[in-house]
């Protein structure tokens, strides 16, 4: 009896230690470049909290969290438009406690916009971190004829363009055809019609595609070797290429670059909320945010961080984003549940053409 008691006591003591040790770790599910080693080291030195990074993308984040019902990670970084739908379908996040955020660190507009677009049943689930846009990464010396999405299908670029066969390509093509798919988000019938039209154009355009890229390294290799002239891409990829050779840059389509904001969101069964809030407030400091901008090539919602970035990055940004271009950015609205099923079916059909 005594032995059993002792064992139980020992076991519970161990469990306590294990629990305490776990609380000192922040398991972060994020994108490449959003948590550079230098930033992690500085955070650990300041708070003593260890950070475990898992690199991911929007779909993968949702899949991972769905598989565990929101366990396994303490902080995730989905795009703001991809929170509403998955939250309604799978309930994988917990509401943010805005009182724990140091709101003064944010650019006010981005903070409010992200809170607004991630609100489900009166509770906000995400707050802005990094923003950027999708348009073309382009070799500008050879791609002067490409102004809008439909120009990618011009015969003179046969075999010389690339894109990611995901929803951005579908939406971009829809804008290129003169439609406004974002306005049809609330009308599934109309939306399906627009997407069918865009998918038909993508299928028609397929002979022009060298290969659909899946990771930015794929795309960088095709752009550097000259095999691809222009590609649907994130601005960060264009800026990165600009740093290597200024003939490359990000070019916004005339119909407007498609703007996204990646957020911080707390997984439903995260175990280290305090560490998560500490990390959020830490990386939003302008000097830390500037390091993340350099590593990721995208911009931060941290106020004042844009003044601290390197001259090359600034030059690339200023060439790509003139005031007109910025004013014309089409921000991804929250995706209602169900729309992605429509897109998925159509994308599969394009892939099989």
């Amino acid at each position: 009896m005594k032995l059993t008691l002792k064992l139980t006591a020992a076991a519970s003591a161990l469990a306590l230690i294990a629990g305490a040790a776990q609380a000192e770790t922040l398991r972060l599910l994020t994108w490449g470049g959003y948590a550079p080693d230098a930033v992690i080291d500085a955070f650990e030195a300041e708070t003593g909290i260890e950070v475990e990074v898992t690199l991911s993308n929007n779909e993968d984040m949702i899949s991972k969290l769905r598989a565990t019902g929101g366990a396994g990670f303490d902080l995730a970084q989905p795009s703001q438009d991809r929170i509403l739908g998955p939250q309604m379908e799978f309930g994988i996040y917990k509401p943010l406690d805005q009182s724990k955020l140091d709101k003064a660190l944010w650019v006010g507009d981005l903070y409010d916009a992200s809170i607004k677009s991630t609100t489900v049943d009166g509770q906000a689930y995400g707050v802005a971190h990094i923003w950027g846009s999708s348009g073309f990464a382009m070799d500008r010396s050879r791609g002067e004829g490409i102004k809008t999405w439909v120009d990618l299908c011009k015969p003179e670029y046969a075999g010389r363009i690339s894109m990611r066969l995901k929803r951005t390509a579908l939406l971009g093509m829809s804008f290129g055809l003169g439609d406004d798919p974002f306005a049809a988000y609330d009308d599934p019938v109309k939306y399906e019609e627009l997407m069918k039209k865009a998918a038909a154009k993508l299928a028609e355009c397929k002979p022009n595609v060298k290969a659909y890229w899946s990771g930015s390294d794929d795309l960088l290799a095709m752009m550097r070797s000259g095999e691809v002239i222009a590609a649907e891409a994130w601005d960060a990829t264009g800026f990165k290429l600009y740093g290597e050779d200024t003939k490359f840059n990000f070019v916004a389509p005339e119909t407007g670059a498609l703007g996204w904001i990646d957020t911080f969101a707390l997984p439903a069964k995260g175990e280290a909320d305090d560490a998560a809030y500490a990390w959020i407030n830490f990386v939003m400091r302008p000097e830390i945010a500037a390091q993340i901008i350099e590593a990721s090539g995208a911009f931060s919602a941290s106020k004042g961080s844009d003044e601290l970035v390197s001259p090359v990055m600034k030059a690339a940004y200023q060439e790509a984003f003139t005031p007109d271009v910025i004013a014309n950015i089409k921000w991804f609205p929250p995706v209602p549940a169900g729309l992605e099923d429509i897109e998925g079916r159509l994308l599969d059909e394009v892939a099989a053409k």
Partner: protein
Amino acid sequence: MTASRLTLWLLFAPFLAWVLLLVVIPHIDLLILSLREKVAPRVYETGFRNYADFITSSVYPWTLFRTVAFSLVTTAVTFVIGFPVAFYIAKVARGRRRAALFLLCLLPFWVSEIVRVFGWMMILRETGLLSGFLQWAHVTSGPVEFLYNDAAIMIGLVYTSMLFMIVPLISTIDGLDDALIEAGYDLGGNGVTVMTRIVIPYAMPGIMAGSIVVFMLSLGNYLTPTLLGGKNGQWFTAQIYNQFITRFNWELGSAFGFILLITSTLVVWLLLRLSGQSLSNTLGR
């Protein structure tokens, strides 16, 4: 229970746990999932709609057919290339030469599949080695794209699965008594009749074992068709991945998984039936 039976059970336990936990239970879970129809967010009904979606789709059955056909061709090509190699290693080469040849077959497996595929991408791409060589030799005037087509997929798959055809072939051909081949010639046979009437029938279990493994490996491959096939590299496993990971449609993905399982079982059964072999006779040896 006697001690020896207990030992047997203990030795058997890890295998049993493996099969139960990693094969049987996940499959049951998958089956249940595949019979769940999504009606609205967080609302589900039970039924066969996912399977019906597969059958009525214009895309998915075609991809499955393509995948099976490609895997069969891969198996045939692997056999045609692998059989002479296996025969040479088993019957002609001797001593160190034999060991060296066998090692050569193993060599590509010293690196992981992804490295092998990237190697092929460097060779086949438009600005790659092969295209560069052809231009240097003035065979072509401009760069040629060898990547992102069905032939590239085939090269990758054959390269990856060659070893799995050669090893079972060597082990069966090795057991063939040389006297039988000599007797064949003594009785008036020539190279062709000896090969088709003695060697191949004798090696049939090995041929089937190799074919089944190669077929299954090709059918279940994901990396090679996706990376080498590019925009036209439709593969059924990639569809399953898509449904699970990028579409969050686990229900349809599970149905696809079961359809693939049933299809591959059918094809293997058919192959065994046509060749007059049994599973225990081929893989069980």
